[in-house]
C-alpha cells in the first residue's frame, strides 16, 4: 500500500504544485481587486470569500458572482484566472487519469491487493507456481476439493484467464517472476498455513529455483516439482524435495500399465480422477496382445517413452516423424502422418496399435482419423495437449486418450489430498488385473460409480480424541468393521471401506472387517462424504465411540459414570 501512495505522490507532484500556485495567485488577486457593494461603496472580498470563488470556478461548478455582483475590474481578472485555473485543473485530472493507466501503478495496486489477500488467508493453503495447462488443472481440482491456494505465474494472460475461471473461492493470483524468492514470500511461502509448494512451470530452471527457495526458506515443507529433463529431475531430487514428477515418464508409465494390467489402469484412473468423475462403465482399454506392429507417430519425448513401452511388451515398432528421426533397426518414415501413403508405408493395415504423440492436437486428430479409416480395428492411443480440445477428443473416441496436464495434476493431487493415499496408489500400481478388478467392483458396490472420497487419520489424541479415550479406558480393541458402523444405529453400515492400515513399519492393504485396531495405528478409508462425517463423529466423541463399539453402559457422560461407580461400591 505504501508503494501505491509513494508512486501517486511522486507522479502528481508537478500538477499539485501548479494547482497550489494558481490557486494562491487567483485567491490573492480576487481579494485585492476592488469591488463594490449594492450601495456602490468600495468593498474587498475577504481571503476566504476569494478562495471560495476560486474553488468553485476552478472546478467549473460556477455558482456565479457571490456575494455581490462583480465590478468590471473583478470580471476582467476573473476572465484571466478562469483560463489559468481550468488549465491547472485539467492538468491535474489528466495526470491522475494517466496514472491509473500506468502499468507500474497498476502493478503496485495489484501487488498490494495480493499481499492483503495472502495475509488474510488463515486456513491451510497450497502455493502453486506456474499456471500452464498443468497448473490450471491442478488449481481447478484443488478448488473442487475445497482446498485453498495461492498461485503465481510469469505470464499475465494466464493470470487473467484464471481470474475469469469460475472458482468457488476467490484465490489470490499474482503475475510475477516465480524465480525471485521475494515473489514466493509474497505468495505466502513463509506463512505457517502454507502446507506445500507445487512447482509446475514449463521451464525446468524455474521449478528448480522454486524448489531451492522453498527448501532453504521453509526446510521440511513438502515440495512437488515438475522436471522435464532427467538431469533437472536428478538435481531437483538431490534437494530432498517431496516428489519430482516428470510428465514424460508418468505418461510412459501409464501406457505401460494400461498394456500390462488394463483393470489396474482403470481403477487408478477412477481413484485419482477429479471429484465427481465416474468409473468408466465399459471395459477398460484392452490393448491387443503381442506380437504385432505399433506405429508411433511423432517421435518426440512422449513418443520415445511410448515406443520403449511397446517394445518392452514385445511389439514391433514403426515410426513416422516429421523431423525425420532415424532409429537403426526400426522402420522410419519422414512425414506428417496424416496422409494415406505414409500410413500405408508403415503398414497401418496390419498394425495393431497407433500412438499419436505430437504437440499439436489438430495433427494428432488428423493422424488418428486417417488411420481409423484405413484400419477400423487399430487400437489408438492419443496425446491430448490442450484441455480446450477435450470435446474433439471425446467425440473422436480413441481407445485411450492421455492428457499430460491431467496426468500431472492427478499425480500432484494424489500426493496432497490426504496422507497415506500416495502409498496406497503406489501399492495399487504394482497389483495385477484380477486384484484391481475385484477392488474396483467391491468399491463400486459400496459407493457407486462416482469417484470415492479418501480420508485418513491416526488413532491418537490429536486426530481421534474420542476413540482413543474409550480405548484407554480399557475397552476391547475395535475391529476395522466397527469403523463403518453408523453413529445413530450401530447395526447400520455407512458406505466406506478401509483400504490401508499402517502400524509402525507394517502396512496392511485392504484390512478385513475382523482386523483389530490399536492405539497409534493409521488408517486410510475410501467412501462417501456422509460416511466420513459419520466416522469423524465417532472419532471425536467418546460417547458415540462407546456406543458404536457396543458398550451401552459406557455410553454415558462422566457424571453418570462416576455415579454408577459409587452405586456399585
Amino acid at each position, binding site marked *: 500500500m505504501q508503494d501505491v501512495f509513494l508512486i501517486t*505522490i511522486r507522479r502528481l507532484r508537478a500538477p499539485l504544485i501548479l494547482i497550489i500556485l494558481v490557486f494562491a495567485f487567483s485567491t490573492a488577486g480576487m481579494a485585492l481587486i476592488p469591488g463594490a457593494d449594492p450601495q456602490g461603496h468600495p468593498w474587498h472580498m*475577504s481571503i476566504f470569500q476569494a478562495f471560495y470563488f476560486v474553488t468553485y470556478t476552478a472546478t467549473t461548478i460556477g455558482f456565479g458572482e457571490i456575494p455581490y455582483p462583480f465590478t468590471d475590474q473583478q470580471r476582467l481578472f476573473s476572465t484571466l484566472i478562469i483560463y489559468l485555473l481550468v488549465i491547472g485543473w485539467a492538468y491535474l485530472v489528466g495526470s491522475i487519469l494517466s496514472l491509473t493507466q500506468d502499468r507500474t501503478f497498476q502493478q503496485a495496486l495489484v501487488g498490494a491487493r495480493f499481499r492483503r489477500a495472502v495475509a488474510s488467508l488463515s486456513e491451510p493453503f497450497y502455493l502453486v507456481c506456474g499456471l500452464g495447462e498443468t497448473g490450471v488443472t491442478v488449481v481447478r481440482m484443488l478448488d473442487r476439493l475445497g482446498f485453498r491456494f495461492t498461485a503465481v505465474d510469469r505470464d499475465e494472460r494466464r493470470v487473467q484467464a484464471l481470474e475469469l475461471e469460475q472458482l468457488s473461492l476467490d484465490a489470490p493470483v499474482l503475475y510475477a517472476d516465480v524465480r525471485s524468492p521475494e515473489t514466493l514470500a509474497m505468495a505466502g511461502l513463509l506463512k505457517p498455513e502454507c502446507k506445500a509448494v507445487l512447482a509446475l512451470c514449463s521451464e525446468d530452471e524455474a521449478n528448480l529455483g522454486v524448489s531451492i527457495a522453498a527448501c532453504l526458506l521453509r526446510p521440511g515443507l513438502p515440495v512437488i516439482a515438475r522436471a522435464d529433463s532427467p538431469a533437472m529431475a536428478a538435481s531437483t531430487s538431490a534437494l530432498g524435495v517431496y516428489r519430482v514428477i516428470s510428465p514424460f515418464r508418468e505418461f510412459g508409465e501409464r501406457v505401460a500399465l494400461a498394456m500390462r494390467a488394463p483393470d489396474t489402469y482403470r481403477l487408478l484412473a477412477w481413484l485419482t480422477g477429479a471429484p465427481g468423475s465416474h468409473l468408466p462403465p465399459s471395459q477398460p482399454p484392452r490393448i491387443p496382445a503381442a506380437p504385432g506392429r505399433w506405429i508411433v507417430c511423432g517421435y518426440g519425448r512422449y513418443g520415445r517413452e511410448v515406443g520403449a513401452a511397446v517394445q518392452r511388451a514385445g511389439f514391433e515398432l514403426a515410426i513416422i516423424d516429421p523431423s525425420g528421426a532415424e532409429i537403426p533397426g526400426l522402420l522410419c518414415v519422414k512425414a506428417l502422418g496424416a496422409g494415406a501413403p505414409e500410413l500405408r508405408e508403415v503398414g497401418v493395415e496390419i498394425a495393431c496399435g497407433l500412438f499419436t504423440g505430437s504437440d499439436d492436437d489438430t495433427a494428432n486428430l488428423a493422424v488418428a482419423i486417417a488411420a481409423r479409416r484405413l484400419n477400423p480395428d487399430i487400437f489408438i492411443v492419443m496425446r491430448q495437449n490442450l484441455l480446450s480440445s477435450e470435446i474433439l477428443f471425446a467425440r473422436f473416441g480413441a481407445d485411450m486418450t492421455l492428457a499430460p496436464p491431467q496426468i500431472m495434476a492427478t499425480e500432484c493431487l494424489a500426493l496432497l489430498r490426504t496422507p497415506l493415499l500416495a502409498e496406497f496408489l503406489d501399492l495399487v500400481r504394482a497389483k495385477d488385473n484380477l486384484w484391481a478388478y475385484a477392488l474396483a467392483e467391491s468399491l463400486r458396490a459400496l459407493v457407486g460409480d462416482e469417484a470415492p472420497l479418501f480420508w485418513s487419520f491416526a488413532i491418537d489424541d490429536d486426530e481421534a480424541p474420542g476413540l482413543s479415550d474409550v480405548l484407554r479406558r480399557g475397552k476391547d480393541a475395535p475391529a476395522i468393521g466397527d469403523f463403518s458402523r453408523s453413529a445413530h444405529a450401530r447395526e447400520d453400515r455407512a458406505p466406506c471401506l478401509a483400504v490401508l492400515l499402517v502400524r509402525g513399519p507394517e502396512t496392511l492393504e485392504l484390512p478385513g472387517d475382523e482386523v483389530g485396531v490399536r492405539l497409534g495405528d493409521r488408517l486410510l478409508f475410501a467412501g462417501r462424504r456422509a460416511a466420513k462425517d459419520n466416522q469423524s463423529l465417532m472419532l471425536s466423541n467418546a460417547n458415540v465411540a462407546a456406543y458404536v463399539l457396543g458398550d451401552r453402559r459406557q455410553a454415558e457422560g462422566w457424571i453418570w459414570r462416576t455415579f454408577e461407580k459409587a452405586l456399585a461400591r
Partner: protein
Amino acid sequence: MNLEKVVFAFVILLAATLNFGFVYGGVENPAHHHIWELFAATTVNLVAVVLKFGDRTHIGAVQQAASLVALLQLLAAGFFWFFLAPKDATPGPDALSSIVSLAAGALVANGVSVVILIVDTSIQRR
C-alpha cells in the same frame, strides 16, 4: 548548479522567512501581523510539503514531518483567524495572541526544516 536543489532550498527558506515575518512583533498588536503574510506563509508551506513528498531517505522523512507540522500549525492559525475575527476586520488581542502563538509553533518546525537543509547540504562532499 542543480535547479531542482535551488528551488527546493528556496521554497524551504521562503517558508521560514515568511513565517518569521508574520510572527515577528508584539503578540497582541494587530499592526504587527498581517493576514496576507499568513496567507503567503501557508501557501509556501503547502508547496514545501508537496515538494518533499515521495522522498524515501531518512533525512527526507524528517523534512517531510517538519513541513507537515508547520503546515498544520499555519492552517490552524488560519482557521482561528477565520472564526475569531469580526467580519472584515482584524481579530482582537485574545484571538490574535492564539493565532500568533500557533504561527510561532510553525516557525519552530520551519526552523528545524532549515537546519536539516543546512546539515544535509554541509555533509555533501562537493
